[in-house]
């Protein structure tokens, strides 16, 4: 197992890159608003991983604290976003994001 690289910063960054990529993909491609929200959560988690990883290897508390706040805001965001999604559903009878295009032109 000596050939294994010791777990370092790049591993965490790689994971976060994948999470970000998947999150973005979800936001871009999925029609269901709920799934889009899930993608957003993924992106936030990717960011959090980066914060904490850098904080760990840097030795400061900034990243930790920041991620804490990010989690709080993510909670708030989720609550608001869901409320909006429910409102959208009430108005358009659908949560299909692609069909909600009344701002076109």
């Amino acid at each position, binding site marked *: *197992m000596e050939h*294994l690289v*010791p*777990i*370092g*910063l790049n591993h*965490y*960054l*790689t*994971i976060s*890159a*994948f*999470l*970000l*990529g*998947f*999150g*973005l*993909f979800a936001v*871009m*491609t*999925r*029609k*269901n608003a*709920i*799934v889009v*929200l*899930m993608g957003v*959560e*993924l992106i936030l*988690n990717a960011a*959090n*991983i980066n914060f904490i*990883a850098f*904080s*760990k*290897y*840097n*030795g400061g*508390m900034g990243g*930790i604290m920041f*991620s*804490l*706040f990010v*989690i*709080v*805001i*993510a*909670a*708030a965001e*989720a*609550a*608001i976003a*869901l*409320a909006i*999604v*429910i*409102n959208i*559903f009430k108005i358009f009878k659908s949560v*299909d994001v692609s069909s909600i295009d009344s701002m076109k032109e």
Partner: protein
Amino acid sequence: MMNSLTYTVIFYLFAAITVFSAAFVVFSRNVIYSAFSLLFTFFGVAALYVFLSADFIAVTQVVVYVGGILVLLLFGVMFTKGIMDTEVKSDVLHIIPGTLILAGIIGALLYTFYTTHTWKPSETQLHGSLVERIGFETVSHYVLPFEMVSILLLAALIGAAFLARFDKPDNKNS
């Protein structure tokens, strides 16, 4: 302290859980599956936090995400459609540009990370439990953001409750 091999294996395990469950969240056509898959992702991430000495954050992650947000999302799914409704299966669009960008972004980021040789880990890395330090920081250095975030959260929750309210007789006529 466990030995490095075990440590490494456990890390890869959790990393794989996180990445693959995230992939499943995205690629699954069924929203319910996605939601449950997301559960695994959150857990995986929480485990990674533990590896990063951020035990308090990991706990918070589990409590907030899994206990709060994910449940919220599931409620959202259920409020909008029936669980097993076929329409719940979400369609995709922009599949080709989405895939290209997915690959491109991930590739570009990884390329950047691995071609960057200037990561120099600090001599004083964080070790052990940070709960005490977080408490300290929260009420000293970060007291103002903390208070603001709590107010924000309160406001957001009230706002969300207001927005999501059913049956607004005042607005019906307008």
